């Protein structure tokens, strides 16, 4: 795995472990994550742009932080 792939994999794992904590602060927001650093926005474009501004060389891992309502889709 090349370093950037490894980093994204780590960020995916980090998200998996920390999502319940992130819900406290970012529920309903979109987040972009690089090396465990969270850039949040009202939508994917805002979160992505914030992240690339801080980490121009890294493609962030994107996610929507769930609210605490139950999902029935």
């Amino acid at each position, binding site marked *: 795995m090349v370093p950037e792939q490894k980093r994204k994999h780590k*960020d995916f794992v980090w998200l998996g472990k920390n999502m319940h904590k992130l819900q406290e602060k970012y529920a309903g927001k979109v987040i972009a994550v690089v090396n465990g650093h969270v850039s949040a926005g009202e939508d994917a474009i805002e979160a992505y742009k914030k992240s690339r501004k801080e980490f121009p060389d890294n493609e962030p891992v994107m996610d929507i932080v*769930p609210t605490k309502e139950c999902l029935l*889709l």
Partner: protein
Amino acid sequence: MIEYQWRDEGSDSFGRLKRPIAQLHIKDKSGEWRAISMLIDSGADVSIISKDFGELFGHNLKKGRKIKLKGIGEGEVVAYIHKMDMLVGKHEVSIEVAIASVDLKVNILGRRNLFDLFEIQFKNKKQETRFLKN
């Protein structure tokens, strides 16, 4: 075989619960792979991403085929079908994805195309989802 651990999330009604999330990549219109998490939903007819993600990935929303989606509630969501390349583990696959005409609070991996390409197993005891390439 690709294994995705279920994700611990908080819920007002049930406290902590585990949800089946997949971590994958979607190729945007410029050819870049974007890393994204999506909820795996075997009850969803088609995969769907939020409008803002569709825009971020460079898609012209209305160039896709228009469809209407309904959930359990009364409302319906207009969406547009686009073909997208996805990287699931090391497997590059092309599937139809609906881009919603509104921002959603979840991106969903549904059955269309994807469940033909992979055997997808929900392993409740191990709290993981397995993707086996057909």
